[in-house]
């Protein structure tokens, strides 16, 4: 099929001739067009830049500084250099468990919610009866407050008296330790994250809607079937959206804390001792704010690495002209 090649060509023609063409237009001695463009950009970015540095970078930096201190938040901090990091890598029994829990959970939740939400979005984008109703149903879990979500799921998963195991028993199956077994707890919690992925569905829906009809029609005239149209036109056009959802799902799921807080307390056997939950524990219940900050620093690097990998690989599969971000 030549449709695949055809589409990038169209985009290429649209995208490439940006800067040159404008410059050739007028001549201005001081405020050149590109300078004006830059000024507009800086003006656009001022609020965000100021805000993000104030509410994000200054506290983040202070967290890094704190990681060099022994501080319980009450008495005055004591400088101890890299001792916090040393403790983390040597005697901390939770470090490896938390690393494992965070990565496994993020992997399950990201893969699960991406597949689920793209699939549902495609279904909901088709011509089915009562579409608004179905859309609302899939979106509602995302709106629910965490306290309602996790309490309910805890009841459903309960080993002896929960609904799921009641159904298992009625079907003659042995009860499953959804939350009590270290093997099952992460898939069980990831399923809740998938269930809550209504926001991803909505973003995918918005993206599906933005796929220009022109190319679809052109491809249809060329005789592409709906699967080919989906694979060669919809998916490439959706790739910025897919990338966005992937990035968001990855970061949010790496930073997961609520399921541990609300259901498992990091157990059983540390299987759900997520790193950000551990940071919470150290900072707010163990009075080791400096140590928690050291964890946060390591966590920052970890999430940074994954984000960087995602951005780096995006070059190979992301489908749009990008002259800025990189």
């Amino acid at each position, binding site marked *: 099929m030549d449709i695949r090649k055809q589409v990038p060509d169209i985009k290429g023609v649209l995208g490439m001739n940006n800067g040159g063409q404008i410059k050739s237009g007028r001549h201005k001695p001081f405020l050149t067009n590109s300078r004006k463009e830059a000024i507009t950009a800086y003006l656009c970015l001022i609020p965000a830049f100021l805000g993000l540095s104030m509410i994000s970078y200054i506290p983040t930096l202070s967290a890094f500084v704190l990681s060099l201190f022994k501080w*319980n*938040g*009450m*008495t005055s901090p004591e400088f101890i250099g890299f001792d916090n990091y040393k403790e983390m890598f040597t*005697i901390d*029994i939770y470090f490896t468990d938390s690393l494992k829990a965070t990565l496994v959970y993020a992997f399950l939740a990201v893969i699960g919610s991406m597949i689920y939400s793209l699939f549902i979005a495609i279904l909901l984008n088709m011509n089915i009866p009562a579409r608004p109703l179905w859309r609302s149903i899939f979106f509602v879990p995302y709106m629910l407050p965490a306290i309602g979500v996790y309490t309910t799921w*805890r009841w459903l998963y*309960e*080993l*002896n*008296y929960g609904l799921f195991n009641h159904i298992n028993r009625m079907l003659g199956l*042995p009860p499953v*330790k959804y*939350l*009590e*077994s*270290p093997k099952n707890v992460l898939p069980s919690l990831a399923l809740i994250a998938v269930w809550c992925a209504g926001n991803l569905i909505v973003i995918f829906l918005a993206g599906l809607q933005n796929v220009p009809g022109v190319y679809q029609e052109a491809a249809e005239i060329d005789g592409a079937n709906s699967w080919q149209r989906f694979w060669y036109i919809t998916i490439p056009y959706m790739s910025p959206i897919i990338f966005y959802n992937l990035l968001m799902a990855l970061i949010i799921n790496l930073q997961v804390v609520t399921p541990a*807080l609300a*259901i498992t*307390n*990091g*157990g*059983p*056997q*540390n299987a759900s001792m997520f790193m950000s939950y551990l940071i*919470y*524990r150290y*900072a*707010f*219940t*163990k*009075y080791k*704010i400096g140590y928690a900050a050291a964890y946060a620093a390591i966590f920052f690097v970890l999430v940074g690495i994954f984000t960087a990998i995602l951005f780096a690989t995006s070059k190979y599969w992301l489908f749009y002209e990008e002259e800025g971000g990189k």
Partner: protein
Amino acid sequence: MIKRKIAILLAAIVMLSLITLSACDGTNKDVPSTGTTGTESSGGTSADERIRITYAQWGNETETAACQAVADKFNAQQDKIYVEVLKIDYDNYIAKLNTMATAGELPDTAIMSEAGVLTFAKNGLLYDISEMYEENEAKPLDCITFKNNGTPVAYSAANEVLNIWYNIDLLKEVCEKQGLDINQFTPPAKAEDAWSWDEFVRVAQTLTIDVNGRNALDPNFDPNNVDIYGCCVNILPWQLEVWCLSNGGGFFNKDGTECIINQPEAVEALQAIADLSLKYHCAPPVSTAATALSTSLGTEKIVMATDGAWNVGTYLGPDANFEYGVGVLPYFKEKVTICTGGPNVVFATTKHPEEAMTWLKWYYQEENSWDLIENGTWMPILESWYTNSELTDKWINNKNYPEAGMYKSAVVDYAFNNAVSTAWYYVSGTDVFNAALDTAMSYVWTGDMTAREAINKYYDELNRIFLENN
């Protein structure tokens, strides 16, 4: 066209900003500065010159309402002090309090979680309340007094002890089914009649029946298809301490100088709890159901369960669909229960310690927190309520309570004669310790490790936490 659109947009932005500003201005006017100085609540008048103190608490909606009612009553009597109640979510209480402590914005006084008190005290954040009661005044019970190096730093607002609670309807049903004499299987209400652990296990096994109607002592009993379980022991780490104490051990030694959870007494007791479901099949496999009466007895498939006395007011009295009874805990070597209760503290940062103490002292008088005592949530903290039969009658002859004679011996006398302090009254960092113990025990509940193996694996960590905090 385009310009008009921009104009509309700008107008919209300006309007919204104005709405916002007016809304936020409103906030500012109402709240000159919240936190240390307090806000005007509906009860106060604007020309009020009384000293304002804030009292933070974490109750649910009934407790908050009750607490507010008490504060209103106090405020109505007082011409010098005005108490403002600050409600903080229970699950995030420590997070918020720590954040406030770090910023130096603590309230004047508060009810705290038990485990946090000594940590705060050791860091100099608690005001010394030893002068709150005169030498000859009636003080709260000694076992609910928090002590930092021997000096009192806080008293619990209420007394709570652990007991065994049972579903009488279900007990009758199980006994009838098997043709048993119900009296032999009713948990004893007097400490002197308390079941030994082996007796308890045997009773629980007899009361456990599978779907075929066989009990757990029957060789053909089917542990995978149990209909009714005989017992369910609460596995919250702080509650596990009682079994270690009963077996002559404990989490820590009596003066809180050593962590002895790795001693055979403690390990044996912990193993015995796990064996209830792993070996004897008389308790359900450990799950989240085992952390509250509402989820254990509440299933109406469990005959007996252990938990604290507050359940009379929060669950058993108002909500339970069955007739319930209360008995004393079974014992290994010593007939013992543990007592606890949310502590009221005065923060060292307060500018009005005298007023804060006046308020707390007033609040400690049972008649002032009567609502919570009357409905069974709180037990009184002053000795006289346990020793003076007139007061005891006033306390337990209320409609929420079970049969008075039973409650009197199983809870009142038991609490007065057999209760010892939970470790957090004299050991700091128990919340962290308990969290680590919870992890260790999760290996035991599943049967992946014996209690000995799990405690050995985690003893270094547990002991390190203990040493770091004490």
